């Protein structure tokens, strides 16, 4: 436990120091990279709730990431065009306020996860993987063919949304917002993991029959976890859209689902900081290898293959040992 705690602290501290250093030396691009890593880490932590704690191998988390992104895109595009979102039966205006957008993204992610989860959890194992993948793809194609919000071209938002009292266009201030949210989300993961609900979730993963025997419905437990997971990933989607000031159906694509899963696996499934480490590594690799070769995905693939075949328990497992790896 000790070694993993130290590793976790080191990762979090590193993730804080690098952008601060970049701020001091005036290198905004590094801050933006760090912000990207932090946002992707939030998406990874979201998936880790379903995948790591609940054992639900969801290959459709792009759906929640995407709907969070579009929550931001739709609200902000209506606000920047001064056209109401809905006039009847009640007037709903667009908004440029981040907290409002986050709330909508979280609710949208949760509701979508509830619907997809309720259907997908009727099955298990390989069926579950394929079905979540298929639902993600369904939304991807829907967003492409639905012309109201840019269709295939996506939506551009000209000015980053605002947060009361902060200048979100300043990279370090936006980083601070995202980093704070990451810490909150990690705290949520930790609380879920150690709560009674977390124990039930662990048994739903390991031995659903016993859980049923003590009077807890495993499917319902898993559905709640899947919903929380979708909500967190939705929040990450809204932040990601705000980082790029752009949303497109790519956020819904199956590659996005695969990448979110890669963060979790690279770092270590079910570990608190696994997705954070994975996301940071992914962004660093993308930046470094992307500079070396146009075909950097080959190297990413090779590294990923190496981790899956030879470093079970992820890279944190490699550093901190397998003792605390979940069952």
């Amino acid at each position, binding site marked *: 436990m000790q070694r993993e705690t130290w590793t976790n602290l080191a990762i979090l501290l590193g993730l804080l120091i690098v952008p601060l250093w970049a701020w001091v030396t005036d290198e905004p691009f590094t801050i933006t990279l760090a912000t990207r890593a932090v946002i992707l880490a939030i998406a990874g932590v979201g998936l880790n709730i379903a995948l790591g704690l609940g054992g639900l*191998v969801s290959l459709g988390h792009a759906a929640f990431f995407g709907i969070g992104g579009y929550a931001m895109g739709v609200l902000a595009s209506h606000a920047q065009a001064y056209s109401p979102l809905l006039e009847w039966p009640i007037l709903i205006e667009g908004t440029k306020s981040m907290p409002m957008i986050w709330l909508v993204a979280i609710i949208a992610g949760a509701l979508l996860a509830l619907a997809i989860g309720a259907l997908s959890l009727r*099955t298990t194992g390989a069926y579950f*993987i394929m079905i979540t993948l*298929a639902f993600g*793809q369904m939304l991807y194609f829907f967003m492409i063919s639905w012309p109201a919000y840019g269709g295939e071209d996506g939506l551009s938002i000209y000015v980053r949304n605002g947060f009361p009292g902060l200048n979100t266009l300043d990279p370090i201030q936006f980083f601070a917002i995202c980093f704070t949210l990451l810490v909150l989300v990690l705290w949520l993961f930790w609380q879920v993991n150690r709560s009674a609900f977390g124990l039930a979730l662990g048994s739903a993963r390991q031995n659903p029959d016993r859980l049923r025997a003590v009077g807890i419905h495993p499917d319902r437990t898993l559905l709640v976890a899947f919903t929380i997971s979708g909500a967190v990933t939705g929040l990450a989607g809204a932040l990601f859209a705000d980082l790029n000031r752009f949303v497109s159906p790519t956020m819904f694509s199956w590659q996005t689902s695969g990448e979110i899963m890669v963060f979790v696996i690279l770092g270590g499934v079910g570990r608190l900081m696994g997705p954070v480490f994975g996301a940071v590594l992914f962004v660093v690799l993308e930046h470094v290898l992307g500079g070396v070769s146009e075909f950097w995905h*080959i190297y990413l693939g090779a590294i990923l*293959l190496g981790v899956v075949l030879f470093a079970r328990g992820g890279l944190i497992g490699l550093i901190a040992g397998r003792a605390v790896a979940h069952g």
Partner: protein
Amino acid sequence: MSFVLLVEQILNGLQFGVMLFLMAAGLTLIFGVMGLINLAHGSLYMIGAFAAAATAAATGSFLLALAASLAAAAVVGVLVEMLVIRRLYDRDHLDQVLATFALILIFSEGTRWIFGSFPLFLEIPDYLSGPVSLPLGVQYPLYRLTIIAIGLVVAAGLFALIARTRIGIQIRAGEADREMIGALGVDISRLYTLVFALGAALAGFAGALIGAIQSVQVGMGEPVLILAFVVIVIGGIGSVPGALVGAILVGLTDTLGRFLLPIFFGTFMEPSAATSVGASLASMAIYVLMAAVLIIRPRGLFGAA
């Protein structure tokens, strides 16, 4: 809506379904026999298409191109099975998903590296191009009709292989009880390689056949792969007849949905709105079908209850 157009769309749906079957049959066999979920199946489809396009460009022969697609996909399949997939059989699905996702990255970028980002084109040969006249005044492209025929022949061959031959017996036994057929002296690892190569060859063949209708490009395999997943979820994982029924259902639903939904909405909406609403809903139709099947039969139409 004319009758001729409807028949054409039904044939299109059938052709699409038959292609999906070639993909889904391999996937479902690999899952049924080895318990492996293979995301890289779409890459084999792509490799088949590229091998065919390159061979056709070099030799000008369409038949050689088809043969090359079968051979290339099977060889790559055998190599991948022996180098990577073999280590994944006793791992959980998560590791399999990740490792095969990594394979997709390697294959896609590798192909882009060799062939570049621009799509290649595979010409339909003269003797298969042009329309044929069917009864009731329907005109239909000969090539697409040939695809339907080839697909049905392959399906029949596959059923015969599984039902009638010694390898088929071993495959069915492997699905039922892996340890037992090992104990009975069947070389399991050879059987696995064989099944994987068979699935790979079918996927590569499908890629080559479709490559002549669409363009041959990197990333062409994954959309088809995901549809093949939908097919085997509907049909029941591990069931080849299920894959056939599921594939035809998905092919028809998708094609007819795209054709009929805009017309349906056009009866009470403005034409432009009807087209966009119809197209959006049509793109979701097969997933709605999948959800409906799952609600009624969570293990698929032909899956063991």
